[in-house]
């Protein structure tokens, strides 16, 4: 279990982490979410005793990190994939870590096998791809068979197979009763792995909730309708007391009402439908909305009036540029 209490970190004038209080529990995967620059890595560094907090406290099973005599047995951490000397072989990298905690040599061979790096164990880490480096970092985290695992952006740079592997790994580690704390800036990734969510933005705690609650409260489901007889359809829906939103581009969105009900309604009035599809607003969108005010580095989209770069052949659809810019916003969950 990891307990944070009023954890705060200043860098000069800049407040990186502000008064964070939450608990990471064993037996579940806790997702630590926030946009880039939200203070996730700083918080994790403070948890590991690498950075000194300006105020507040972090305790690992009731102890400060520096008080741990055999820390690798308590916490395994993947901070960043390249936190290793590139000139050292994978085996030697793990060996020096193992020796510093009195972990037997055989364990090094075991974890190399677990992460699938046995064939390149004697190769220098410098030549490793990002994914291999990530795997080596994970091997280091697993070395002490710790009861707490901390991963900072573990899926970065991994291929789909690797992502699948790490998801299952995290779930199985949590299933064994370990505490798993994983940071990410991808909500969709967290939705697949985490049981509990801690969301921060600009160093502030924005949410500390279970994943199912978060999904329930944030995933807006609705039905999308398209019809060549839109005016009549609108009338019919109004008569039935169904609120409808015109989403532009000839589509209607209905928040309340099942596709069956709406289809029957249209059929009863002899209306032609070109689309009748249940939709779910993505969690990604919910996350973006939650952190919208605390995103530090905004990308600015070009003004809609600015002509697009010359495109040949011209787009088949005859529509003004930027008109359908939000067409895809509700695609998929």
């Amino acid at each position: 279990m990891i307990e944070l209490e009023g954890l705060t970190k200043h860098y000069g004038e800049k407040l990186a982490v502000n008064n964070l209080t939450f608990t990471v529990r064993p037996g579940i995967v806790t997702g630590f979410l926030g946009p880039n620059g939200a203070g996730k890595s700083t918080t994790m560094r403070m948890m590991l005793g690498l950075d000194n907090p300006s105020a507040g406290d972090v305790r690992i099973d009731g102890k400060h990190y520096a008080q741990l005599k055999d820390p690798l047995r308590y916490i395994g951490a993947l901070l960043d994939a390249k936190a290793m000397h590139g000139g050292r072989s994978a085996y030697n990298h793990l060996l020096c870590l193992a020796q510093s905690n009195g972990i037997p040599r055989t364990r090094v061979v075991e974890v190399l096998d677990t992460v699938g790096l046995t064939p390149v164990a004697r190769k220098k880490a410098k030549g490793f791809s990002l994914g291999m480096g990530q795997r080596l970092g994970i091997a280091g985290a697993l070395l002490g068979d710790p009861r707490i695992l901390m991963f900072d952006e573990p899926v970065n740079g991994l291929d789909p197979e690797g992502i699948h592997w790490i998801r299952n790994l995290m779930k199985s580690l949590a299933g064994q009763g370990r505490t798993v704390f994983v940071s990410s800036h991808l909500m969709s990734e967290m939705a697949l792995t985490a049981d509990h969510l801690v969301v921060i933005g600009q160093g502030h705690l924005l949410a500390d909730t279970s994943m199912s609650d978060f999904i329930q409260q944030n995933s807006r489901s609705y039905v999308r309708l398209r019809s060549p007889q839109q005016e009549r359809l609108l009338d019919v829906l109004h008569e039935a007391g169904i609120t409808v939103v015109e989403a532009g581009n000839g589509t209607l969105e209905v928040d309340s009402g099942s596709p069956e009900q709406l289809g029957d309604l249209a059929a009863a009035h002899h209306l032609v439908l070109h689309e009748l599809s249940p939709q779910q607003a993505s969690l990604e969108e919910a996350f973006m909305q939650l952190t919208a005010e605390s995103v530090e580095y905004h990308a600015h989209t070009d003004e809609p009036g600015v002509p697009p770069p010359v495109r040949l052949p011209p787009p088949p659809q005859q529509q003004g540029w930027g008109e359908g810019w939000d067409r895809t916003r509700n695609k998929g969950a």
Partner: protein
Amino acid sequence: MTTPPPQPAPQAYAQQSAPNWQGAPGTSYTSPIPVTRTHLGHALASEWTKIKSVRSTLWTLGIFLFLVLGGGLFVSAQTEDLNYQDLPFTFPAFIGLLLGQICLITLGVLVTSSEYGTGMIRTTFTASPQRYRVFAAKILVFFAVAFAVSAGSILLVGLLTSSMHSGPEAADLSWGGTVLKGGLYVSLLGVLGLAVGSMLRHSAGAITAMLGIVLLPSILPVFLMISRSTRTLGEKMQEYNAINALAKIFGADGGSTGGSQVWLLVGVTAAAVVGAFALLERRDV
């Protein structure tokens, strides 16, 4: 950016304190691996693995050996028995050491600064939050390696030279002290580099700083001697600079055996190590 659909206010989450946990609290994992209380011995083993598993160790020590042994043999071959009437048999190692000390300084700096440069230091301090222990282990392991290599190579040069030049004209001065003092001096320079590397955390910066420490005191006196007010300072610098210190240790300066120069370096190195220790605990990694 997208137009946000109607949503409950985000502040709602921060206030509620997650009532239903999905996991069963209290079912903590226990590992089958036996628990060990770590001590300095573990840190030493770890640092020994580290120093021997990087190429830079091989390169710096290889060049050092080439310079000291190669230079020693060369000088030894050029000298005659008569030269050793007032010089110890280890004197030929002196020329190689003048250049070779830079290799040991570089290795010393790299032992710490390369960890900062690569980010390895975060992994290291996560594995051993007792930073002073890691640093002490680094110093001990580096010093042992540097001293074994430097004293060993000086000894070898001494043995070779004595076998080549122990004719009746040579005075057969005792040279055991020069092996220890010479090895100690260059190894301490390396430890100083290690401490400076730990404080500056930057390989190139720390190596440059060390070259300044070694070379400037042998260049500056020329200018300091010009003015009367700085003359004493210039004289002291000339007497105690690294190059002159080695010359004294190897009897190239008559009379003096460089004892006070070694002590000065011991003092400077100890101060740098204390400084590095003090900064180590306070700074973020």
